[in-house]
């Protein structure tokens, strides 16, 4: 029996790094400090595993499966490389290289989650911080279209609402928490104030708040009374250190990147009065890493096309759903993602028409649909690597268990594919 401490959790964007696992016979028997979701991931990680490389569902040797994958990619005119938010950074770098070598398109899951956040950053910027500043200084926290109580389970405890830090030794008591949402979520229930807004009216409310902060009179907006808006604006101005945590409720409702634009500008405006910041609640544990690595290698965070031999970026054109819907790609390499479960049905039908190669540790609808499926070692449990927290802090994933014999990490497998399609080195 062995106890490993300081484990980084490879589940959500919180990337909690204080987990403790008890390991017996290459199996995790106990896990401490984990949230319910994380516990389930660690304790059940050996269940439902993809246990052999397959071609058309038939078990084959790794060599054969890799040859088939390389063949598909090198004969494809325009492959799509997609996923990457639940794997280590080293694999993401290799995926970029494959895209470049094959003249394909690389995209990650931010094209269906926080893509609009990035578009807004490219439009107006963003005033953000690592989470420790919130823990140490914040006295006003606003969760807008995000619900950490059910999606980022330890966020409130470790980083925000009830955390205690350098200048916040009283924790929850001296903090005012506001939830802005279209329904009373669990987060709204624990907040000091719940502001219920009409669906798809976030942009209007954010603009009204900006006007109120600038000192203008505002009418009732988005189902929120003018008094409530004025009160909120004043509360924001008078906070010592405020922050907005926003989620998909803001990025994927009507207005999308315009909503984030409005939120960014509101926060920027507030900096004339006090310290105010905002930070997106990223979902998958390394979706931030997928953006980060792709950006330093190509200049662009997602939706990058290499068909001309140099990177080009155009969300809406080179994003996976758009490419598939238009039937523009003739092969796909899916890494650590399950688009068959998450993409619209008509797009999945397009995916079913082309040869798909999938790297995953578990059986999923996508592996079942794939021409070639390759089992991998679970990053953060069976393999090391880097992951970036939702706020951009890089942490080292650890290897707790030996993978089954012959099972390799995403990065190793992608490297073997690169060798086969004639990469350098």
């Amino acid at each position, binding site marked *: 029996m062995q106890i490993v401490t300081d484990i980084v959790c490879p589940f959500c964007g919180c990337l909690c*790094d204080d987990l403790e696992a008890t390991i017996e016979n290459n199996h995790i028997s106990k896990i401490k400090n984990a949230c319910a979701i994380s516990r389930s991931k660690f304790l059940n990680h050996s269940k439902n595993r993809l246990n052999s490389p397959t071609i058309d569902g038939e078990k084959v040797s790794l060599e054969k499966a890799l040859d088939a994958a390389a063949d598909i990619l090198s004969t494809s005119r325009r492959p799509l490389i997609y996923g990457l938010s639940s794997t280590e950074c080293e694999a993401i770098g290799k995926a970029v290289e494959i895209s470049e070598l094959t003249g394909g398109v690389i995209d990650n899951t931010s094209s269906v989650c926080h893509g609009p956040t990035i578009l807004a950053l*490219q439009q107006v910027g*963003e*005033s953000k911080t690592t989470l*420790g500043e919130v823990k140490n200084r914040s006295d006003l926290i606003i969760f807008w279209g995000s619900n950490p109580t059910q999606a980022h389970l330890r966020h409130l405890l470790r980083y925000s609402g009830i955390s205690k830090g350098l200048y916040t030794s009283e924790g929850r008591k001296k903090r005012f928490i506001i939830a802005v949402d279209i329904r009373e979520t669990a987060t709204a229930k624990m907040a000091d104030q719940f502001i219920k807004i009409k669906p798809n009216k976030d942009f209007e409310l954010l603009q009204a708040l900006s006007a109120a902060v600038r000192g203008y009179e505002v009418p009732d907006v988005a189902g929120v009374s003018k008094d409530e808006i004025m009160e909120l604006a004043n509360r924001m101005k008078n906070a010592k250190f405020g922050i907005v945590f926003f989620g998909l409720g803001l990025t994927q409702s009507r207005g999308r990147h315009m909503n984030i634009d409005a939120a960014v500008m509101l926060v920027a405006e507030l900096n004339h009065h006090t310290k105010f910041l905002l930070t997106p609640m990223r979902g998958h544990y390394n979706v931030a890493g997928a953006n980060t690595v792709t950006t*330093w290698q190509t200049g662009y965070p997602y939706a990058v096309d290499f068909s001309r031999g140099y990177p080009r970026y155009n969300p809406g054109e080179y994003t996976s759903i758009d490419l598939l819907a238009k039937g523009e790609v003739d092969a796909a390499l899916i890494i650590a993602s399950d688009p068959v479960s998450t993409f619209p049905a008509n797009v999945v039908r397009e995916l079913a028409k082309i040869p798909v190669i999938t790297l995953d540790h578990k059986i999923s609808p996508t592996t079942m649909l794939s021409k070639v499926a390759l089992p991998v070692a679970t990053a953060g449990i069976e393999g090391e690597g880097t992951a970036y927290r939702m706020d951009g802090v890089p942490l*080292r994933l650890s290897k707790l268990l030996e993978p089954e014999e012959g099972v390799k990490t995403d990065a190793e497998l992608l490297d073997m594919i690169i060798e086969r399609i004639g990469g350098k080195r």
Partner: protein
Amino acid sequence: MSDIIIKGGVVFDPLNNVNGELKEIYIKEGKVAEEFPENKAKVIDAKGMTVMPGGVDLHSHIAGSKINIGRLMRPEDHRKDPVPRSINTRSGVGYSCPSTFVTGYRYAQMGYTTVMEAAMPPLGARHVHEELNDTPIIDKAAFTLFGNNYFVLKYIKEGDKDKLKAFIAWLLRATRGYAVKIVNPGGVEHWKWGRNVEGLDTPIENYEITPREVITSLAESNEELGLPHTIHLHCNNLGVPGNYETTIETIDTVKGIKPKKGREASVHIVHCQFNALDGENWMKLKSGASKISKYVNGKSHVTLDLGQVIFTDTTTMTGDGPWQFRLWELTGNKWVNSDVEMEAGAGVVPYTFKKNNPANAIQWAIGLELALLIKDPWKVYMTTDHPNGGPFYYYPKVISWLMSRKSRTETMLESNKSCIRKTTLDGSYREYTFNDIAIVTRAATAKVLGLVNKGHLGIGADGDVSIYKINPKTWRPSKFKELEKAFSSAAYTIKNGDIVVKDGEVHSTSLGSTFWADAEIPEGLESELVKELEEDFSKYYTVNFRNYPVEEAYLPTQIPVEAKGGKW
């Protein structure tokens, strides 16, 4: 790697007092060597060409969260400069925020072989090293941010000098950093409450110490530890008209600190142009370069770099959060702020330096004035503070301004008259020689960095050589366009005995090394320090203490530079 003989070139190797001599250079097993027979070696005919040690840039932003935010927020910048893949190279983008691969290639194409990343937030150290590992060819190092670190402020407040020194040594090792970088001491901490400091004597809230104490304490510790480089200081009040006074005061405040053995300087002032503004406000702006130069000319304890302005669209990025906020207010351009818990912060704002903007024209002149008015080239180095003043691949343009009054005059006449009226640039007839250029771009920078095998071509030096297709014997300042061309695209760049660039094209792309400063800490003190750090980490950080130091996996090709004989 084959052995190389460079024949017939005109060699500039200032650290070995070689000033434009016809001389052969021999490279064996990646190092400069004694003469050996020609039979098996590759012979490079450098007749009529300029031969220098590989360039050493001591201040540039090439890796880590800040430059990556720049890349992320500026797709419009990349579109001006796409870089296709080739048989030897990866694709990417260039202009003000080049991708990592392109950064390595373009430095090598200019004959640069060593580059320092100037600001590494400790919490983001892995990110910096990951990017450095994707930056091909060049050797590199990163400077760890110290000036607003909680533990630094705490130990200064407590007056615990030994703990402060131990912490510096510990953090450099934990982050694999090379030098002590200080950015707007106190100001960045205040920015976490939305404010700044006004100068050297504003008390830092919650710590009851001043920026002046932070600077002197860190400088003193730096020298007592015997670190390879001096403190690397971004002064308070950057970008504020009238700030030349703060700059002089800052340099003056460390003059009493005894530099470590073998070095004269105890402080390096970064991108001095941004800190050499005179006048009450932007409307009344004039150059403060002559005042700073006059002070620096009389002192030996200071070195500085230019932060030369290039008239172009670029992306400003500093660890100085409040200044970037101010710049956002001034310009209305998009603004990213990025605070880092307990230790640092940063901001990024795109900016265009325009010839017809009076302030920009003055800023352009200030950089050149500093270079020309400071008499000793060993004290003032060429940088653009990439990409703050402009992208690094404009260095050849800066070289032409320094070496040719005609080149300067041409730009001056195209620019707002303020650069003539409000500065002394027009009065300067000094023109840099090839030897001066070799000093300010490699010899002096390598020396002040304490990189003993860089910046020269003596026996045993690293086999890093750049050869430029220009004949220093026949060149005249009127031919500055030729000069620019030659320095833009090296005829050869040799890195550790490998020909990496030929005729301006990248030929081979091995990964360079990462330097870091390895200072010893007395054993008992270290365990005491670690105990204190662990306690504060568990209370105030959001990562566990044991997950904080950078793992070996991030340093595939590291070279620790030992700092021995520290005073305790």
